[in-house]
């Protein structure tokens, strides 16, 4: 039996993967990729959690032995910001494809190649 957080992150990853595999619309695929990214971030943070401990900000009452693992948080902090920038780049590629082909359907775009 796995934790609810693990279940939620795995469900988000599966939903995103389903979108990428089945859907035809390019923007819908990018929405699925964003959901998948949120799921991966949630999985990393929930692996670093230690029950009964507080955030890794040392102050009065919170010693070094009463904080959760700070390394996944540092990893995810930068990954979120980079995620939105790369998503914006993928969206501008989608805008250019729509300008050239007049559609966002990936099957159509593949057929109109050349």
């Amino acid at each position, binding site marked *: 039996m796995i*934790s*609810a*957080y693990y*279940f*939620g992150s795995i*469900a*988000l990853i599966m*939903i995103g993967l*389903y*979108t990428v595999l089945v*859907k*035809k*619309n390019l*923007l*819908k695929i*990018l*929405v*699925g990729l*964003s*959901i998948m990214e*949120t799921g991966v*971030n*949630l999985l990393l*943070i*929930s692996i*670093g*959690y230690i*029950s009964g*401990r*507080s*955030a*890794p*900000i040392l102050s009065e009452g919170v010693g070094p032995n009463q904080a*959760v693992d700070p390394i996944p*948080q540092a990893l*995810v*902090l930068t990954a*979120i*910001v980079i*995620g*939105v920038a790369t*998503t*914006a780049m993928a*969206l*501008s590629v*989608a*805008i250019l494809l*729509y300008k050239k082909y007049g559609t*966002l*359907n990936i*099957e159509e775009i*593949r057929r109109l190649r050349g």
Partner: protein
Amino acid sequence: MIHPYPSASGWVADFIIAVMIGVAIFAVEWRDLLGAVVGMAAVSLFASILFYFLQAPDVAMTEAAIGAALSGAVFIFALKRTVRYETEEEEKPGWWLRW
């Protein structure tokens, strides 16, 4: 003694996880892409609450500012320059080769 930190395991967290998965399924299945983008932003917002429960306030702040505001806005600007509705078309012969 009242615990000073939000509890990471409890019915509130389970409820938020359930709502988050439901919104994610809706976001993927909606034909209207504007609704899909708003659903994606809502998933990010629920994930931000979960980050706070998991004692990661730095990540929660970043996710709330980026995932719920900027990411959704960038998607909506792209929608404005393309089409809003997803069209479902019939399958062409030879789909099993391409797919």
